[in-house]
Structures are given as C-alpha cells and as structure tokens.
C-alpha cells in the first residue's frame, strides 16, 4: 500500500474564469506545498487577483477545480475560512474605523488570535492605532490589511500585492514576516509584479500572463535555465584580448561588443574575476564598472512573452 501524497495547501487545476468575453484566467494549474511560499508573478491584468479571489471563495470558477487545504472554497467555505488568512488588494476597513478597532474586530472572529496591541506594534502601527483608516497612508493601510490576514493564526495565507505602496523599510518588514510564516509552517501564496520580491521570498514562482501559465519553477531554476552568466567592464578601447583568452578557463569567451566595453561570457567564478583584474593590471588599465550579471526573472519573462513585467 502506498501512502497518499501529502495534501497540498492550495491546488488549482484547469482553472477558467471569464468576465464576459475576457478570459481572465484561462486553464491555470498551480500547487502550493505545505509550509512553502508561492509567488504568483505577472504584469497588471495577468489574472493574479482573479486567481487569488477564486481561491478565497469570492469568485466561482467557470471551469476547473480549486482546493484549499483539501476543501472547496465555496461549498466548504464555513469550514475553511477560519483556517485561512486573506489580505485583499486595497481597502478592507470602514472609512472611519481606528486601526486598533478594525484589527480587534477581525481578531474577535478567531479562536486563538495574536495579541492585537503586539501585532500593531510589530507592524509599526502603534503610533497610529487610534487614527481613522481613511487618514492612514497607503503603506499603513496595507500593513493593517496584512495584520488582519495574520491575526487569526491561519494555516494558509493569501496576500494580494502585499508590498504595493510601501516604503523600503516596510517592504523589508513584510519580507521578514513572509519568511517567518514559512518557517513557522504557514503556507503562503502571494502576488507581485516585482521580480526581486519573487526571487527573494518564493520557493516556487508561477509566472502568468493573459491568464495562462508562462513558466514555473524555483527562482534558481527559472533564472539559471539556459543562462550564460556575464561579466562586463569598461577600459581603454582596442586592448589585445588573446592573452586574456588564454589565461581564462576553457569555455570563457571575451569580446569587445562596443569600443571600450568588454564582455566575458561563461561560468563566472571568483577565479575568473581575479584573472580579469590581474590582466587589467598587467595592461596598466583600470577596469571600470566591473559587474557580474545573471538572468533575472524580468529577463525570463521578457524572453517568454516579449513583454515588460512592470506594465
């Protein structure tokens, strides 16, 4: 007898959701394993929010199967909702409500909520706890929405664009929280159109466009596949490159694509870097703007769709 496969935190198979003639989600599959982080990446209008709202039970799929913790988000909604934390995109509080009142209300709906005062403090909202929601900044409203998603100590968390409108410190805080959620055994599905966010946080990245899967895999898989790493530097034009070619390990190529701009392609490791700088010293030139680049998710997306991710 074989053991059943561990139940996915979120499973989406063949999801279709249309609005009139527009197929917002068009046959999407994805799977969030327990205690992992999945980033749903795509430009605006790619179908990210629709996908998340179907998982949250706010929209009914036209076709396909959606299961969260093995349950149907609509038919089993009453059983599922206490186990799920939701951060919608924008809004989610009465215009005149104070941050502390809103969080206390959501906390009252949970059996073992986190401490409201502590959570506000952690999210940097203690100073504005008594300020009406409509007078909070966009970033503060976002942090309150995140607090509301977490306060009930859920098993699965859906975060729709959790860092949009946030300053770098607040964004860093959200990154810390997502990292801690995974370490504590919470499964996270978040949407973003920032590739560095997906690369930094996610175990699994699902890239969608026009409601369809474009690519998926770990950030490393997606960015390394077929990618030659590159080292670029600037120096006096017309340097003799043959000696450098000889000194570099096999498989590395050197070229001067534009006058004074040099490119080394291949597996760039510290030894290659040292060889290049030593050679520059021998030539009596200073290597300017020396940098190593690898493919970013942005490059991957551009290659697969011909479109910019941040549209």
């Amino acid at each position, binding site marked *: 007898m074989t053991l059943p496969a561990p139940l996915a935190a979120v499973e989406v198979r063949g999801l279709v959701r249309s609005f009139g003639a527009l197929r917002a989600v068009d046959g999407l599959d994805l799977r969030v394993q327990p205690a992992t982080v999945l980033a749903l990446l795509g430009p605006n209008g790619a179908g990210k929010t629709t996908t998340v709202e179907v998982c*949250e039970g*706010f929209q009914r799929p036209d076709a396909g199967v959606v299961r969260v913790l093995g349950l149907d988000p609509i038919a089993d909604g*009453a059983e599922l*909702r*206490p*186990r*799920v934390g*939701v951060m*919608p995109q*924008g*809004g*989610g*509080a*009465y*215009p*005149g*409500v104070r941050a502390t*009142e*809103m969080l*206390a*209300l*959501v906390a*009252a*709906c*949970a*059996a*073992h*909520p*986190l401490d409201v005062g502590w959570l506000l403090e*952690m999210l940097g909202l203690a100073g504005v706890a008594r300020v009406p*929601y409509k007078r909070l900044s966009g970033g503060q409203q976002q942090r309150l929405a995140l607090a*509301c998603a*977490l306060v*009930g*100590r*859920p*098993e699965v968390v859906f975060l729709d664009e959790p860092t949009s409108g946030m300053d770098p410190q607040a964004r*860093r*805080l959200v*990154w*810390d*929280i997502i*990292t*801690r*959620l995974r*370490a*504590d*055994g*919470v499964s996270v599905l978040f949407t973003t159109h920032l590739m560095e966010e997906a690369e*930094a*946080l996610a175990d699994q990245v699902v890239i969608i466009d026009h409601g369809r899967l474009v690519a998926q895999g770990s950030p490393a898989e997606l960015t390394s596949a077929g990618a030659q790493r590159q080292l670029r530097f600037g120096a006096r034009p017309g340097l003799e490159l043959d000696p450098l070619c000889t000194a570099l390990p096999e498989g590395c190529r050197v070229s001067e694509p534009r006058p004074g701009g040099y490119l080394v392609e291949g597996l760039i490791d510290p030894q290659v870097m040292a060889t290049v700088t030593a050679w520059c010293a021998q030539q009596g030139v200073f290597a300017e703007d020396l940098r190593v680049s690898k493919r970013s998710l942005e490059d991957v997306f551009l290659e697969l769709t011909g479109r910019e991710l941040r549209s």
Partner: protein
Amino acid sequence: MTTLSPDTFPPGTFAPAPGRGALTRMLLTQARTEFVLTLRNGEQVLLTLLIPLGMLIGLTLLNVVPVPSPRVDHVTPRMLALAVMSTAFTGQAIALGFDRRYGVLKRLAATALPRWSLVAGRMLAVLGVVLVQLVVLGAAALALGWHPELAGMAPAVLLILAGTLAFGALGVLLGGALRAEVVLAVANTVWLALVVAGGIVLAAHALPGPLATIVTALPSGALAEGLHTALVTGTTPWNALVVLLAWAAGAAVLAARTLRLS
C-alpha cells in the same frame, strides 16, 4: 532567499492555531464597532439625532404646520418614526454602500463570521442607535410637556421594532446593490420625499386626494400613523404593524438575492 532579521519575530510567532471565534462575541464586536462608528460620524449624527430633534422642537413650538393641541403629543410620535427611518434606512444604506466600496464586507466575509451575521450585526448596531434616539427624543419631548398614553407603550415598542426591520431591510436592499454615489443620492432623495409626502411631517388625512390612501401603505406612513395612534389613543394599530412586517419580509427576500459584497 532572504535571511531573517534576528529577534523581530521569534520562532513560532505565527505557528498556526486556527479556529472560529465564539458566535456571540463575533456578532457583538461587529455590532459594537458599527454602533460606535455611526455615533462618531458627524453626518450620521446630524441625520439621526439633530434633524429629528430640531424638528421635534420646531414643530412643537412654531405653528408652521396644522397640528392639534397639545402639539407635542401629536408631533413626538411622528418624529420617532422619522428617527427610525433616518437610521435604519437612509443612514444604513449610505454606510453599507460605502463599506462595500471600501471592501469592508469582503474583509468580514473572509473571516469566520457567518455570512448571515454580516447583515445581522448591522441590524443590531442600528437597533442600538435607535435606542439612543428614543432616549434623546423621549427626554426632549418630556421636557416639552409630552404625555404619551401609557397603554400605547407596548404597541409602540412593537411598531418601532417592526419599523426598524422594515426600513433596515429596505436599507440593505438599496445599499447592498448599487454604487456608493448612487446609493447616497437615492437614499437622501427617498428620505426627503417620505418626510414631506410620506406621512412623516403631515398626517395622512392632511395630504391631498389619493396620496392619503397610498401613504398608509408606505412604511413611513404606517410607522408614523401607527405610533401616533398608539401613543395618542393607547390602542394597538394592527394594520400598521401588518404593513410594516410585509415590507420587512418583502425587502428582506429581495435583498438576500441582490446583496453584493463589493
């Protein structure tokens, strides 16, 4: 993969411990929050307290509309009806319209709160505000020399409950289906029309022709005439009670189909 800043969130901070809160606690917290928000909102206080209070005093002291003597006994029941309509219908519809716009209903629908209590919590908050209105308007009326018929108190309470249900259901029907700006415009227009020609300020028999008969079938007319009958004569106006409950049932059935979360 990022590394965690030390000590911000110790291990186990977010360890799952899901579960549904106690039903009464959820419902009462929602009702209390919305009750406090209503009393904190200046426009709502104007609509629900200051206008009925100003009209109670004005119509009692100034001879602008024909009212039998003692004026305060005839004016007060109508102003109680106005208070219920303002809170349960106009105020609630507008608040619901904007709460939907701000994603409040979605937010609450994503918690363990059962769907029916989204509306039940609002109605509880409305009842709380109506209670505050009764105390304030009642005290002001007594100060003006109001002598209600004591035998009419119990039927008056029933009428106010039925009126709150009827106007509350109509408020959910309006505020739960249309865009916030449209709700605002319609709710205020209907309020003004019912105050002037719906049996609130002027008694049904003082209105011209067919309007007099139509008005007693409206929730505004039924509530105002019913409270007037109960508090002036001390009898129970069963027909008004039936009209209000019919409106409540009809609007509730419709609203259950049309209510949208956003």
